[in-house]
């Protein structure tokens, strides 16, 4: 069956360090991959999208890589700040006609950045 795994449920790092979150998938060929941030009691907020033919995307302190051979995406936050503390979700989008709207989410990784 299709499966998406985010490397850990929780990640604790020190302020100023780089946070690296992992998203692995199996039995799946995504058309694109998105990363979202979710704060408690709120809906997910879109951060970055990377397509299957792209290797890397950057936005300010954020960087996403996509390796379709390894079936893995890495999400990096450089110079992390306590305000970056949240749950980060990866989501895969599908190729199949009629299912492009069907995002499949991982469980998320709860990041805590300590001052």
């Amino acid at each position: 069956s299709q499966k998406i795994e985010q490397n850990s449920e929780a990640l604790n790092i020190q302020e100023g360090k780089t946070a690296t979150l992992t998203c692995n998938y199996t039995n799946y060929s995504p058309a694109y991959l998105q990363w979202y941030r979710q704060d408690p009691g709120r809906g997910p907020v879109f951060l970055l999208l990377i397509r299957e033919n792209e290797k890397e995307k950057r936005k300010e302190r954020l960087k996403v890589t996509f390796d379709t051979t390894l079936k893995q995406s890495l999400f990096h936050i450089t110079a992390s700040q306590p305000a970056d503390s949240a749950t980060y979700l990866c989501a895969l989008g599908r190729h199949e006609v009629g299912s492009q709207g069907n995002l499949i989410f991982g469980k998320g990784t709860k990041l805590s950045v300590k001052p």
Partner: protein
Amino acid sequence: GAGVSQSPRYKVAKRGQDVALRCDPISGHVSLFWYQQALGQGPEFLTYFQNEAQLDKSGLPSDRFFAERPEGSVSTLKIQRTQQEDSAVYLCASSSRPPSGKETQYFGPGTRLLVL
């Protein structure tokens, strides 16, 4: 604000009761999605509308779940004869274009449903 809004924010229902959850997408957005998020889990896709057409309802868990978007704007997710396993946060999202891999989905704050 111009974001996605959902109501009610919280709903407590007795088992067997019917509930209706409302979503107001961003004005002009053609695509509307419903997701279910259980505690500690990621959102799970329920159904998708392009304007008033329901193009994908493969994620609806049973025939007790029904969604509509009759005029292509506001959407309602209805759950009949609620069960305890229906307890979750129900998220609505909208996007400005049909899904193609380029668009962003904008999420509402969700409706937290608790079935007793």
